[in-house]
């Protein structure tokens, strides 16, 4: 720093920015950050980028193929020619409700609790501009999933129905205009709730969540109720149409979107009289765009009126200082784990306390496994061929594993990184460093065993699998999955810690987290294949003698010896997937400088 500061006070120059200039400054900020992020990723995270890009492309293509065949099936005359319209109406209506909710929550976080707005509010920036800045972020964060999931569906429909070129050209404007409407409504609701009902904002949030979950459940119930028989028959479709009639309300933006897109997909030759379909489509697009602009304008105007006052009023409530107390489950865990070394037991209880006091963790856990349980309990409503029940059981096992792997990536992998600057406290304690890692492994493995094994058992019971061997196989595979996935997450988390990061989602989205997710997915596929294939071949084995070498292999795999080999290989895979990552993690963690 220079020691001489010779700089007389000069009164401020430059005035307050007009709206257009302010908008330009914020766009420049966004562009600068986007360029810097892209450069940084190209320089330091090429592998991660290519991995994420390839997986996204793979996922996109997979969905495209799936939906293409689905639409091709639906367009066959034996089913129904107009089946897509009610399905689109229902899909976009559900999406609209979710977008209102998700953008409202994201905006609440962005407008009222982000450090960026605490900084921007101390500058002469208009409240409207800050709202717009955070609103654009909310639109992006709440709708990128829709782009990833929705675009293959819409493109597949266009290809399957041989839509004209302008259908594909109009997809993006339609989707963007549509997304803005629920996002702006979410923003308006968010501002009004915080302004008018600041003290009950959390209750309002919970109530809206319950309302959304209830409407989603009702929608799903409406679609699949009575689906035990006649599934996918013309009668079933007719019944479905009448149930989904309510989604055809002319005032719903979801209806404008589906109608506009379906109009665009029709060839002019199909409509010899009246306006050409593209003109009809453009009319719906104009309707969506004008409404998007209107709601955005209302949200921005409202922000100008209430945002700064609401921000201040939000802090009128004294911060609640929650008293930390020992819960009976902490004591149960401490006593139940009596056989473990004292240091491991104490660390285990500490991690459990952190988990139960973090609603983000347990609420996501409950929601995901709750939805899975709902699916498993209702599995009989979906018609399936009973001979395949064992295989469906294995598929359910894979789904449980995949859900668990997202949790181990999101919450277990970042555990060591999140110790961050506190790690020196643990490092200076008179405990073995290994104990820290083992406690995290036990926390993850033991914590996941009960819900996962219960779900898999429930799935077998609902599928009426009456072969004890298959049930035992499922349970053994489930244990192997839980233990292995926990070890992979803990081991890799210790091998690749990011001690400067504060956000678990950021750590999980980093290279280490992505690698953990990919390895976990590979491990799940391997374990399920090793157990499912022999059982499948065993159940479907014929009496004919095998002729070729491949036939002999298949015959062996479908024999009792093949099943025994499958289970032995599964156990071996589980041991390798547990021991190896833990060894790697322990070695790295012992060397880690605190």
């Amino acid at each position, binding site marked *: 720093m220079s020691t001489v500061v010779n700089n007389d006070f000069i009164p401020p120059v430059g005035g307050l920015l007009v709206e257009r200039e302010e908008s330009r400054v914020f766009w420049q900020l966004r562009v600068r950050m986007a360029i810097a992020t892209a450069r940084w990723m190209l320089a330091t995270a090429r592998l991660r980028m290519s991995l994420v890009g390839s997986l996204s492309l793979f996922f996109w293509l997979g969905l495209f193929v799936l939906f293409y065949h689905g639409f091709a099936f639906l367009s066959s005359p034996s089913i129904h020619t107009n089946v897509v319209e009610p399905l689109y109406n229902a899909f976009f209506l559900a999406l609209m409700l979710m977008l209102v909710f998700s953008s409202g929550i994201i905006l609440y976080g962005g407008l009222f609790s982000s450090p960026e707005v605490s900084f921007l509010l101390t500058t002469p920036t208009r409240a409207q501009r800050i709202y717009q800045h955070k609103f654009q972020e909310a639109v992006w964060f709440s709708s990128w999933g829709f782009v990833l999931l929705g675009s293959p569906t819409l493109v597949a429909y266009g290809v399957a129905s041989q839509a004209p070129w302008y259908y594909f050209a109009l997809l993006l404007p339609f989707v963007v205009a549509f997304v803005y409407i629920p996002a702006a409504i979410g923003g308006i609701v968010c501002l009004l709730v915080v302004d008018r009902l600041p003290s009950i904002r959390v209750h309002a949030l919970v109530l809206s969540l319950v309302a959304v979950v209830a409407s989603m459940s009702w929608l799903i119930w409406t679609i699949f109720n009575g689906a035990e028989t006649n599934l996918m028959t013309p009668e079933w479709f007719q019944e479905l149409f009448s149930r989904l009639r309510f989604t055809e309300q002319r005032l719903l933006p979801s209806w404008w979107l589906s109608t506009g897109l379906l109009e665009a997909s029709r060839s002019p030759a199909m409509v010899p009289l009246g306006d050409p379909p593209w003109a009809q489509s453009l009319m719906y697009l104009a309707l969506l765009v004008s409404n998007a602009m209107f709601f955005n304008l209302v949200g921005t105007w409202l922000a100008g009126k209430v945002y700064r006052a609401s921000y201040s009023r939000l*802090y009128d409530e004294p911060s609640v200082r929650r008293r930390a107390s020992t819960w009976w489950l902490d004591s149960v865990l401490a006593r139940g784990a009596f056989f473990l070394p004292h240091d491991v037991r104490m660390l285990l209880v500490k991690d459990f306390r952190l988990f139960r006091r973090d609603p983000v963790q347990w609420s996501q856990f409950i929601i995901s496994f709750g939805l899975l349980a709902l699916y498993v309990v209702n599995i009989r409503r979906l018609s399936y061929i009973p001979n395949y029940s064992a295989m469906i059981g294995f598929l359910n096992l894979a789904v449980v594993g995949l859900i668990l792997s997202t949790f181990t990536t999101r919450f277990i992998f970042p555990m060591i990184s999140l110790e961050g600057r506190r790690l020196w406290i643990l490092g200076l304690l008179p405990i073995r460093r290994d104990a820290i890692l083992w406690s995290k492994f036990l926390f993850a493995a033991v914590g996941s065993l009960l819900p996962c094994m219960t779900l898999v058992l429930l799935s077998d019971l609902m599928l009426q699998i009456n072969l004890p061997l298959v049930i035992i196989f499922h349970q053994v595979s489930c244990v192997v999955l839980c233990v292995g996935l926990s070890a992979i997450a803990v081991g890799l988390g210790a091998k690749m810690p990011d001690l400067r990061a504060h956000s678990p989602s950021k750590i999980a989205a980093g290279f280490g987290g992505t690698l953990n997710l990919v390895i976990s997915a590979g491990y799940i596929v391997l374990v399920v294949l090793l157990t499912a294939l022999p059982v499948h071949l065993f159940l479907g084995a014929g009496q004919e003698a095998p002729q070729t070498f491949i036939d002999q292999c298949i015959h062996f795999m479908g024999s009792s010896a093949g099943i025994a080999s499958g289970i032995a290989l599964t156990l071996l895979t589980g041991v390798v997937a547990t021991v190896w990552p833990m060894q790697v993690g322990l070695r790295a963690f012992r060397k880690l400088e605190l």
Partner: protein
Amino acid sequence: MIEFDQVTRNYGLKKAVDRLTLSIQPGELFALLGPNGAGKTTTIKMIVGLLRPTAGTVRICSYDIVRETRQANRCLGYVPEEPYLYEKLSGREFLQFIADLYGLGREEAAIRIAREIQNFSLAEFVDQMTESYSHGMKQRLVFAAALLHDPAVLVLDEPMVGLDPRSMRIVKDLLRERANAGMVVFMSTHTLGLAEEIADRIGIVDRGRLRFLGTVSELRQQLAQEHTSLERMYLELTATAEEAAARESSP
């Protein structure tokens, strides 16, 4: 330049700031002292427009911070205790963003950015992304950003946290010089020595009330008369009833 008129700010039933009336004139360096939870940060957040008073008015450069927020903020520079920087911007890009936000022309901005880079010795790291900065580097950049538009009022919340002794010396000199040049400097601090060394006037707050207000010479006079030190006086003014009783009963 900064005027508090019977300002009260409540958090529920708790009064964080209680009927504060205070006027700080151009060229004055004012230090606000007080224990944790005394109302210092609330007072600062009301000056910069983050919080609104429950009662009373706060005026910055004659602008009401509630009704004329943008004009008031235009006169302000603010250095918070926990600085916020855009991680994916370099220090220079951040300064450019601030210059744009305050409507400085391109040439004017370039001159001032160069000046602050020199004043705060940022040249070594100003083109690196801020995510790689240490706390001290971030603090220096935030100082530079707060002074870039030559505000009439500079507000600092615990400004010396994270600065090395050399940087602290430079910041002290700079604050003094800016105040001498006509700027209002409003600073909250726990460091009694810092307040005594550079402030023109000192206010001591406790539980939302202003317990002492006076110039440093008045303070010194009072301290000399009472044969006490600033630390002792501060402790007496901010003591809880129990602490005061314990102190009186001790030999």
